[in-house]
């Protein structure tokens, strides 16, 4: 861990206008053999295979969300069926069983906003504190944080459940939110990012001007840390949005379910004695579940890509 190098930011590639490959500064570096690399069709073809692999399941989801239950079973999976039922399906998803899906969506939002938001805030404060202050017990904090990165969250789920059920926290939102508040890897990312993103001189100058530490943090540090913070926020959002194991064991009342657990419950309706398959709702519900998070990722991509460039490569 002593080999920390300075965080470097991936050169901006987005937001350079129409930016074809030739406009990018670092892409213009001479290739290893001394001349500007020619575009390779073979290499592009290999990447197309990766691309198809990554996108086919998503395409499958989009295509099949336009089908009614009957045509879902009757038509070829990778192309549209009879009629366009997307809006009909969406309406059914939101109204089925008295709009339980809306409740699940609201729960997911609650867990994401409070859980991921809180985790990011705690990790940012602590990462900044570790990077910019020397204090008693700092080494111990380092050791605990680095050690806890290797402790898998799911290994803790069952013990945490047992603990929470003793103090009556199961089947409440707290059972999901409290364990989500911890992000040792997020702290690690902010810490490595903060080491070089915030110059000591700037902090000293602010102190000489009489600014308090809290004010310095909120006015200066937060601004300089933004790419790192957004990266941590995004990964925390993904983790809480996609959380399944923890809510599965903590919650028994469907009114507190997040989308992931709810969708699986819908999916399981197709089995058993009183089977009542609603495949079209599972497919459309899945699509609705991933749309917000995909949009967030696309909108914030230049932040998380540079943030990862800073933290992801170090150790």
């Amino acid at each position: 861990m002593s080999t920390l190098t300075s965080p470097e930011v991936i050169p901006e590639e987005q937001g350079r206008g129409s930016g074809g490959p030739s406009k990018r500064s670092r892409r213009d570096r001479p290739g290893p053999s001394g001349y500007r690399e020619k575009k390779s069709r073979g290499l592009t073809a290999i990447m197309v295979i990766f691309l198809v692999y990554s996108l086919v399941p998503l395409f499958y989801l989009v295509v099949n969300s336009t089908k009614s239950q009957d045509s879902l079973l009757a038509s070829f999976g990778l192309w549209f069926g009879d009629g366009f039922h997307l809006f009909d399906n969406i309406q059914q998803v939101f109204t089925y069983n008295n709009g339980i899906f809306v409740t699940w969506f609201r729960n997911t939002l609650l867990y994401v906003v409070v859980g991921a938001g809180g985790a990011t805030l705690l990790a940012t404060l602590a990462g900044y504190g570790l990077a910019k202050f020397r204090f008693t017990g700092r080494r111990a904090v380092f050791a605990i944080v680095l050690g806890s990165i290797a402790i898998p969250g799911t290994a803790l789920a069952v013990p945490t459940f047992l603990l929470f059920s003793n103090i009556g926290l199961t089947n409440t939102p707290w059972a999901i939110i409290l364990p989500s508040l911890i992000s040792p890897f997020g702290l690690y990312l902010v810490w490595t990012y903060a080491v070089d993103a915030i110059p000591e001189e700037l902090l000293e100058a602010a102190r000489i001007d009489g600014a308090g530490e809290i004010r310095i943090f909120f006015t200066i540090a937060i601004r300089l840390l933004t790419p790192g913070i957004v990266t941590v926020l995004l990964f925390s959002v993904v983790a809480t949005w996609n959380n399944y194991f923890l809510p599965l064991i903590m919650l028994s009342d469907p009114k507190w379910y997040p989308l992931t657990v709810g969708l699986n419950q819908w999916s399981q309706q197709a089995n058993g004695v009183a089977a009542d398959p609603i495949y079209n709702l599972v497919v459309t519900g899945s699509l609705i579940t991933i749309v917000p998070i995909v949009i967030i990722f696309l909108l914030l991509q230049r932040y998380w890509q540079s943030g990862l460039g800073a933290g992801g490569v170090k150790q």
Partner: protein
Amino acid sequence: MSSGTLTGAKAARLEPTPRKRRRTGRGKQTGWMFVAPFMVVLILMLIVPIGYAIYLSLFRDQLIGGNHFVGLANYIQLLQDSKFWSSFGRVLIFLVIQVPVMLVLALVAALALDSARLHAASFFRIAIFLPYAVPGVVAALIWGFIYGPQFGLTGSFNDLLGSDLLKPFTSTWILTSIGNIVTWEFLGYNMIIFFAALRVVPAELYEAASLDGAGSLRTIISIKLPALRGAIVIASIFSIIGSFQLFNEPNLLKTLAPNVIGTFFTPNMYAYNLSFAGQQFNYSATVAIVMGVITAVIAYIVQVRGTRQENR
């Protein structure tokens, strides 16, 4: 905040020199103001559950005698538990095959992205990363549909070949089916980690290599792969943790392949079913502890070995 409780005898020892003090901000304990909230939650949500799990693993709840201390009896039982070892062997096979396949594919994709020889590189980067944003549950549901005989693609594919080659839900195929889902989810994530590491290689290194007449392959072996070592270590650790803790995908596919995926398919499913179907909380906690220790030890070994090679 908690700074008051932490200034103690220790503080005197660590009195910073004047020069250091200038560098490190005023007040010795100001840092705690920022670190304390995180540490409080960390202790409550991480250390306390671990402690509680250890406590549970040392007890047994029996009809006669109630809850009583049994020492390491649960651990000894676990060591002789063939269900546990079969689940452990399964994730070990999964780990040994799926993780290298996924990481090598991610490496190839990252090297291609970094090669500057790709058309529309940033489009590829985003699109291949996209599955990472898909919840594991949704990924398992989609792939479950695709694998399925009813409106999936395997039926169409097998019809096309005129055979029944693909049987995703049979015991010979099920690990491959799960491995494919996991690879699909995390290929792009690992690609981005590797790609980010490649972007911080100083351009002078490439210039020097090209002056020495190194070709693309030579540059990859001599410059890019060494530069990726740290990222590979991190990606390996996360993948190892993921494999040992495998739960979501098999648990979701279980409804589709009930005869193939049992209650102890992976150690985590075993712990889950012990708790929630069997009410054997003490034994379940033992499984969680043992798996946590094995995971942490292997992650630690990978980290130490990776770092040591870096410093040679």
